[in-house]
């Protein structure tokens, strides 16, 4: 890929919810280009459309209009299954609410994306163990989410997101449900993944402390990009 073609390019993306009187435009035309290896914090007040943009970037949601290119492919023209395959092979998602399967061990949660990839059992186990090791949960493989702290659950979620070796890690307020100490540890972990494995990272946050880890901060206001600037990443 040439330096001129960004990994991701959003052009005039809009997203409208509801109809008629109840119509609400969450995104009013977003233009954004993201290069490989970037660490971007998306900030903005509640209702500014930052989560909506994140879901569209993660192919979890579809834009009402505009174009979304991922590695030069127009995602808005892809079928549901093609977008699922894009998520499977290139994207890792971390949610504020963890979204782990309940009553399922950490190991099985982390293995899940590999099962959908059709990885053989031995490869799957090795990769899941390695991912859990990397997020600092070696020894916790057989615990279920109910037996883990919030910080540990988010680590499992991160392990699940990176176990497939994705190009992009999307995290929607990953520290929103965590205390300061755990938040910092999670951010350190994400920063390490970006620095050592070259994973492109986008995180949505409204805490400046968390945004400080990123090297680029995009600020949303009322469904538009209000500012976009680079900074020295603390990570």
């Amino acid at each position, binding site marked *: 890929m040439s330096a001129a073609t960004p990994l991701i390019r959003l052009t005039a993306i809009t997203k409208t919810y509801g109809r008629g009187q109840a119509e609400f435009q969450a995104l009013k035309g977003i233009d954004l280009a993201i290069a490989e290896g970037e660490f971007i914090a998306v900030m903005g007040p509640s209702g500014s459309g930052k989560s909506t943009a994140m*879901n569209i970037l*993660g192919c*979890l*949601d*579809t834009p009402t209009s505009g174009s979304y290119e991922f590695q030069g492919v127009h995602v808005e023209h892809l079928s*549901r*299954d093609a977008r*699922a*395959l894009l*998520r*499977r*092979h290139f*994207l890792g*998602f971390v*949610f504020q609410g963890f*979204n*782990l*399967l*309940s*009553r*399922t061990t950490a190991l*099985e949660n982390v293995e*899940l*994306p590999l*099962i*959908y*990839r*059709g990885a053989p059992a031995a490869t799957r186990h090795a990769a899941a163990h390695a991912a859990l090791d990397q997020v600092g949960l070696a020894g916790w493989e057989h615990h279920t989410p109910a037996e883990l702290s919030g910080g540990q659950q988010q680590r499992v979620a991160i392990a*699940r997101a990176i176990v*497939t070796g994705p190009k992009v890690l999307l995290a929607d307020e990953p520290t929103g449900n965590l205390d300061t100490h755990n938040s910092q540890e999670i951010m350190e972990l994400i920063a390490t993944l970006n620095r050592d494995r070259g994973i492109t990272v986008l995180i949505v946050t409204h805490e400046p402390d968390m945004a400080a880890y990123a090297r680029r901060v995009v600020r949303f206001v009322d469904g538009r990009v209000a500012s976009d600037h680079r900074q020295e990443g603390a990570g």
Partner: protein
Amino acid sequence: MLWNTLLLAMRAIRRNLLRSFLTILGVVIGVAAVITMVTLGNGATRSVSDQIASMGSSQLMLRPGQRFGPGAEAAPNFRLADVEAIRHQLSGAAAVVPVVSASATAVYQANNWSTSVTGTSNDYFAAANWVIATGRGFTEAEERAGKAVCVIGNTLRDKLFGQQPAVGAEIRIKQFACEVIGQLKAKGQSAMGSDQDDIVVMPLRTVQRRLAGTVDVNLIMVSVAAHASIDEVKTQFESLMRERRKIGEGEDDNFRVMDTRQIAETLTGTTRILTMLLGAVAAVSLLVGGIGIMNIMLVSVTERTREIGIRLAIGALEHEVLLQFLIEAVVLSSLGGAIGIALATAASMALAGVMNVPYLFDPAINLLSFVFSAAIGVIFGYFPARRAARLDPIEALRHE
């Protein structure tokens, strides 16, 4: 991919043990109830038809009188002349057997037992489907002379002789001594519930002279020949009897000809209705079991919708999610069905023993109840999942 999906389905079953258990339970109850009830019903029907078969088939029974109850005139009995006339004039009759009935107390040493006495000819044993277990039937000379010989039923034998041999012994009936020349093989209860084996059979003349004191015949049994039509013989029989009893045109018959086939049809019809009734009751349990399954499946929709959202978000395809849910539903329903069938088989066998009816395996009802329960499990496991799998992942994840 199928293998991996199977793995996912098994993990899902394992992590929701309570839900899996309740689903299986719903299927088990429905399947087991229906199969048990219908199997026992079938056993009862078979038992009744076996008893009817023990009466002997293709028989016409001529009795005096048209109907019972008030207003019924006492119709005259038949005579031996009637029997002779039927023998000679009724074509299609394989055997014509006169019967006179009485009741008397039979005594042997210190034992006595009140029993029913049947006076008849030697053809009676074949016509009424009796088998002589030991000893012999009557000779022509014994019949002609009205000798005091008798063939006894199994119940009477037990009551009078216990474990001792009966053939060759003399029993006393009313005032006369009677030699036991044969013993009948047990038949068991009749379709009406009376004990068919509580019987002593003697030559017709013996009973007429020594017990009844008349020359009457109470009942004439006609075995229809294999090649003849029962209905034709019956019509012929009825007109012959009208003629002999001098019944004018427009007058009602003062006798009845009953057809054992008719009796058999009536009785099996009754038990069949009973079986259907039991089946209907059981179908309600099947339905209740089905509603149970439905409930469990629908209650878990919220949790499962979020689960589907998670699976879609990490890259599962819609049809992979659906296949997993389908496999889950099929596995649980089939397991429940299999357990239900096993349970029903055990229960039917045990209850058939207690109720004294034969155990009959009915593949149709096993299959039908299995398919019905499994279908409910699959439909209610699958369709809510299908709706969830068609949502955008983010909508499924937000599902409350």
